[in-house]
């Protein structure tokens, strides 16, 4: 159905995600989401639901560093920039200083080059603008070997 250039479709069945549409089971990759805004966490939680990953959440950079110091290990870290207590730049730096080599994908709503540079200097692997979408996440997961071919 088209209207003013927009296209509509009727969604009847569940969303399917092809090769990613697996139930979370043994061997699920572990993702740490570091994000202070609850709405954003709820959306990411829903985005990853069919992606066969196990998601843990930290509300700020300090909570993330504490989880890692406590022995938690992850296959990927999604790190927001601006957060209370310890921000994303500093948390990334601290995580790297602990010798952790887990890929860190930095996230920010402001696509400023300075943010990107600071994150990369702190040890992030890449920088992605927010908000995340399912397609963006699938691409990120693929790049870091979190897919299931």
């Amino acid at each position: 159905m088209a209207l003013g250039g927009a296209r509509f479709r009727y969604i009847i069945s569940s969303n399917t995600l092809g090769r990613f549409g697996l139930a979370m089971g043994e061997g699920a990759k572990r993702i740490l989401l570091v994000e202070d805004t609850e709405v954003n966490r709820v959306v990411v939680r829903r985005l990853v639901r069919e992606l066969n990953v196990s998601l843990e959440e930290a509300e700020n950079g300090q909570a993330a560093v504490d989880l890692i110091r406590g022995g938690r290990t992850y296959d990927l870290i999604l790190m927001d920039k601006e957060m209370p207590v310890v921000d994303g730049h500093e948390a990334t730096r601290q995580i790297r200083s602990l010798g952790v080599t887990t890929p860190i994908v930095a996230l920010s709503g402001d696509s400023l080059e300075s943010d990107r540079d600071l994150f990369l200097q702190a040890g992030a692997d890449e920088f992605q603008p927010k908000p995340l979408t399912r397609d963006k996440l699938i691409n990120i997961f693929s790049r870091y070997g979190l897919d299931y071919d």
Partner: protein
Amino acid sequence: MEVSRLQRRYIDFISALFHEGFLDSQFTELQHLQDESNPDFVSEVASLFFEDSERLLNELSRTLDQQTVDFKKIDAHVHQLKGSSASIGAQRVKNVCLTFRSCCDENNLEGCLGCLQQVKQECYLVKNKLDALFRLEQQILATGGVVPIMSKD
């Protein structure tokens, strides 16, 4: 007959919300995450957003009302509102937040006060619009219809 009339109204209404800039593609993204196991996902995320924005707007009013205004604190609250509005696709709210943050950077009290009024107004407007949209969805479902969702491409 009734269902198709409601579906047409729905399409007209949501198209206008996009056309007038109230919503952007992130809202469509959320709609595509809604399925039988999460039939109210979009309205639940929207409710969470409006609860959170009410809290942040109250905090902003209080902080801007102080004798000495802490612009860093204001900026942190606006940052949160910007992030959550972007996550639900409330484009006009997000855009005012961008201007609001520039005013914070410049320690521009007048500008911040103006932006606070504007962002309150935009939150109020988009809440009313989304309430009406969700009511229309319920009417379509009650008549046995399926809610039309805009394609992402």
